[in-house]
């Protein structure tokens, strides 16, 4: 299925989430802005796709660093209006890095402002199409979906990918996340979706198959929360590895002692000695083909 003429999917990698650009007759808009270290690339892609127009509106599905890291740069370049999930207003207004996820995950995100808030049930006009905002807790308690019923297009952010979904972070900190993740999957299942544009990876049309895989994945994680913690720590380290490209194994051993979510997940679920956890994560990433060890360094693959 091809995208409507007013939509462009800027498919990124894993360090930066995908950006969805809307070229309406009167207004342009961008959903999600990638990671801070890719901000020049994001600006280049958006500028190229805008083809002489300016960016009027910026929207974030949720405020993880890979979805809003380009906000500051885009705001500086375009003075675009910015809409964020309503529940995050105070955290962003005061730039509370503890309430936001950046300190906990050891990730970077430059401060940005906002002009409006998005809530479950809100309606937006993007690319001359009507969109509905839907609450999608699970991966993040305040995450949102954007749903265009007329086109059957769902912007799913990290609630649903072709193979899986984003780490269920609340559970790492002892808060409910499995129930919400399942409810969000069932919400998606109840929509007449013809095309999903996820936060990472390609757009896909076989939603039913993706939902089935996601349900099985959730069953697996929920059956033993240790599994979710194992997944979470691997993903957090892989993310840092994507950013840094290579890291001394000794530095990895420091990360497990210092990155708050790694410490929390270990204390609460994994209960390993710090060095043993660091070594285990490195081994798991190597086994998965996500990293290699070269001369005492963990190298991104």
């Amino acid at each position, binding site marked *: 299925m091809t995208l409507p003429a007013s939509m*462009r999917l800027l*498919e990124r990698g894993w360090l930066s989430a995908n950006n969805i650009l809307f070229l309406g007759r009167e207004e342009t808009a961008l959903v999600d802005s990638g990671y801070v270290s890719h901000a020049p690339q994001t600006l*280049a*892609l958006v500028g*190229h796709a805008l083809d002489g127009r300016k960016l009027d509106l910026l929207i974030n599905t949720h405020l993880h660093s890979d979805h809003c890291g380009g906000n500051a740069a885009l705001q500086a370049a375009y003075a675009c209006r910015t809409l964020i999930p309503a529940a995050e207003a105070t955290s962003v207004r005061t730039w509370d890095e503890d309430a936001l996820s950046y300190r906990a995950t050891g990730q970077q995100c430059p401060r940005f402002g906002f002009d409006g808030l998005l809530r479950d049930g809100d309606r937006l006009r993007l690319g001359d199409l009507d969109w509905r905002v839907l609450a999608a807790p699970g991966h993040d308690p305040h995450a949102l979906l954007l749903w265009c019923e007329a086109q059957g297009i769902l912007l799913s952010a990290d609630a649903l990918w072709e193979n899986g979904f984003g780490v269920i972070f609340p559970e790492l900190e002892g808060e409910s996340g499995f129930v919400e993740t399942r409810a969000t999957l069932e919400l998606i299942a109840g929509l007449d979706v013809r095309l999903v544009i996820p936060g990472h990876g390609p*757009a896909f049309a076989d939603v039913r198959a993706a939902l089935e895989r996601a349900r099985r994945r959730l069953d697996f994680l929920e059956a033993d929360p240790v599994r979710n913690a194992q997944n979470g720590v691997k993903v957090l380290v892989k993310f840092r590895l*994507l950013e840094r490209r290579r890291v001394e194994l000794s530095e990895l051993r420091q990360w497990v002692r210092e990155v708050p979510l790694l410490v929390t997940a270990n204390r609460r679920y994994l209960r390993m000695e710090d060095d043993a956890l660091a070594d285990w994560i490195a081994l798991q990433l190597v086994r998965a083909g996500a990293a290699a060890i070269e001369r005492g360094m963990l190298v*991104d693959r």
Partner: protein
Amino acid sequence: MTRYDPSAPGPVPSPCIGVCRMEEETGLCSGCLRTIDEIACWGGAPEAFKREVWREIRRREQSRMPEAKRQ
């Protein structure tokens, strides 16, 4: 770059390896060797376009190698 063969059947993977930096001199991303237009078009493009971009990437890889190493 991964050893992906663009003539292999099935979905075409993204060439992105996370470097994501455009080279001013060449107009290519120094990681995936795509032009800004190829990257921007990728998300909505049919498989045939993606395969052709991969073939172009391979040609660019070849021409960036020192003379002695070219196949």
